[in-house]
């Protein structure tokens, strides 16, 4: 059946404008930040809250212990330490609030991820251009991604179906972001490892680990251009608190560990290094969870990031520090 030539609008034109301008109705897939949905996992939240309180209490005891020792030495030293602890506490809270606020400014991409998942699995139905448009809108102002977006625009034809468009976007646009994010995770875990190995007090450990974790999550989120959703943030927070708890506990138990290993200098150094490696690994896990949560298209089996390289890097940290 033959039809008129001039009344035909090319299907690729829709997709191409979507890819060029990031249009294609992104409003449906990229909502403005809205109030989080209350989940009803009360038992989990109880456990969560209780553990958090316990950590704070342990920390408080340790700080109290430190203050006692300082006051026992001299009043001036005691006042100084008290002032420092207060300043550290206030600064930590302030930084926390800062990071959270800047996270809020990024967009929530849960709809986008769900759409990507649906496109991978379901039969094609012409929705790839909307998804592509939303993804381009997300990265429209990033100059370093412009050549990758241009390459995708070049290669996508009207004959590619949804799975193929999603795979192409995954491979061309998100792969460099993955590499940069992994690099950040590596750096953050190395910093944490070194810092917790060298720090003398539990409070300092606590502050450093919390701050570095938050910074890492913020960096990864701004790299991918999106922040994790409410449920995802909860998961992330749980991991971070586990990290902090372990940092505090290992620091407090440092003396005990050294005694148990014989009390020599080698024992002291090795416990410190072990502490550093553990905390570095936990930070790396936080980072990888953040990568999973902030990525617009979920990881496939072949490009999933692994801890292997980070583990190798961390095990060579003692060499570098010494």
């Amino acid at each position, binding site marked *: *059946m033959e039809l008129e030539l001039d009344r035909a*609008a090319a299907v690729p034109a829709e997709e191409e404008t979507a890819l060029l301008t990031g249009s294609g109705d992104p409003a449906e897939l990229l909502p403005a930040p809205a109030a989080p949905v209350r989940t009803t996992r009360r038992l989990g939240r109880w456990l969560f809250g209780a553990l958090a309180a316990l950590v704070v209490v342990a920390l408080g005891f340790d700080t109290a212990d430190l203050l006692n020792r300082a006051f026992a030495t001299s009043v001036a030293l005691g006042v100084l330490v008290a002032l420092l602890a207060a300043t550290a506490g206030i600064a930590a809270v302030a930084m926390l609030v800062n990071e959270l606020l800047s996270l809020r400014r990024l967009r929530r991409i849960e709809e986008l991820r769900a759409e990507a998942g649906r496109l991978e699995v379901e039969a094609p139905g012409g929705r790839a251009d909307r998804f592509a448009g939303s993804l381009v809108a997300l990265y429209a102002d990033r100059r370093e991604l412009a050549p990758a977006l241009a390459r995708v625009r070049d290669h996508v034809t009207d*004959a590619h179906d949804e799975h193929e468009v999603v795979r*192409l976007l995954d491979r061309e646009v998100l792969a460099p972001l993955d590499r940069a994010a992994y690099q950040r995770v590596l750096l953050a875990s190395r910093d944490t490892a070194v810092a917790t190995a060298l720090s003398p007090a539990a409070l300092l450990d606590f502050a450093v680990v919390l701050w570095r974790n938050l910074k890492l999550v913020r960096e990864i989120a701004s790299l991918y251009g999106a922040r994790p959703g409410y449920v995802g943030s909860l998961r992330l927070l749980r991991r971070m608190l586990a990290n902090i708890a372990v940092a505090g506990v290992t620091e407090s138990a440092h003396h005990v560990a050294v005694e148990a290993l014989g009390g020599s200098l080698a024992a002291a150094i090795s416990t410190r290094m072990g502490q550093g490696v553990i905390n570095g690994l936990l930070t790396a896990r936080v980072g990888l969870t953040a990568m999973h949560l902030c990525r617009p298209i979920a990881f496939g089996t072949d490009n999933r990031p692994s801890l292997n390289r980070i583990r190798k890097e961390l095990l060579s940290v003692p060499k570098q520090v010494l």
Partner: protein
Amino acid sequence: MRIPDLNSLYDAGSRLLLESTVRVGVTGLRRAGKTVFVTALVDNLLKAGRLPFLDVMSSGRFQAARLRPQPDPDVPRFDFEGHLAVLTGPDPHWPEPTRGIGQMRVSLRYRPDSALKRAVQPVATLNLDLVDYPGEWLLDLPLLRQSFAEWSALTLELAARPPRDELSASWRGWLATIDPMASAEEETARRGAALYTDYLHACRRADTLLSLIQPGRFVEPGDMKDAPLLTFCPLPPPQFAGSRGRGSLWALMEERYEAYKTNVVRRFFSEHFAKLDRQIVLIDVLGALNAGPAGMADMKRALELSLEPFRHGSSGWLDWLLGTKIDRVLFAATKADHIAAHQHAQLRALLDRLVGDARNAIRFEGAQVETMAIAALKCTDSVVTEHEGRQLRCVRGVPVGRDRPTVLFPGEIPEDAEAFPPGRDRPYNFLAFRPPDDLGRDPRGLPHIRVDQALQFLLGDYLL
């Protein structure tokens, strides 16, 4: 091999030891698109601009590809430049049907992925050998397993059924007049062969697509035109078993049949198909749909028969002793650009049903099988247009025989199992399109649909 100095010794040694070769068999019945596929594949590899789904290219490890002298110098070279000129020249049209064998080799240079391989060889080379041949010759291969009596019986049974019965009327009429037990006369044999050849030509020209045309050399002799080897035809079995004696017509025909198998078919198979590593089977599903249920059944039978002689299986370390096996087979429905893009999934589902039995047989042997809807040369664009208030997805291209682009609604392939609803004899009419003008201007390579994914499946694990 003269080795004048150390440099050429090093070159020869490295070529022998460090370059790997993969032979990809491009199989397909006639007019499935083998020649255009090989041309488009080689052009895209040489220009390397349009293969995003080929991993070695998207990860940036690919360096370049070049045409190299082919491995068998006594086989004619595939006329790649000629076919490319025909497709991209001022009057683009499809190449003429292939009349003989053509071979070519493309060398791909790339950087290996694993650090270990990179330590041994910073740049690896893969030689890709391709062979093109007339599709009619493919159907000679099943003859290797059939004796003359079996083949005669099968052919006569097929010729007696519609739609071949009227085409073979004159030949079968002549068969009724002769006696296979009579003493052999050269004139009788020649007359029989001539009538049978006419019948085969008529099958080839028929409206309904008749794929099972054996022996292939009768309709496409290549360089064997008028050879005495081609002077035989199927005979009805003689009444008495003892009468297949010497000197009878039957014995003469049988002797010629066996000679054909030995000298022509077995040689063709062992030279070009016995050493394949990977195979792509090109199937013109849209042509089969056009031909109706009879044509589709005929093509299905022809496909299954032609795939039997190939040795499929997983390759192992005993290959050097027992011979290589084909460990990956790709069934590709060609000319996917003749339908709208959203129909590709249905085309693939139809292909799955068409090759289902063959696929199971090959998987049973241990090879990996995949199906895809591809187009070696993308001649159309998908467009959306409005017609009588409905939104229709159509294709826009230049149909064969015209010179201006037109928008056509090609028809829809149904989603369910009934490809041919009862009641209408030939419900589909997919038109053929010719290549668009100015294909040669684009430096990135000929446009295609999913040829890169086909390459990734066929060569992906060699290019690591």
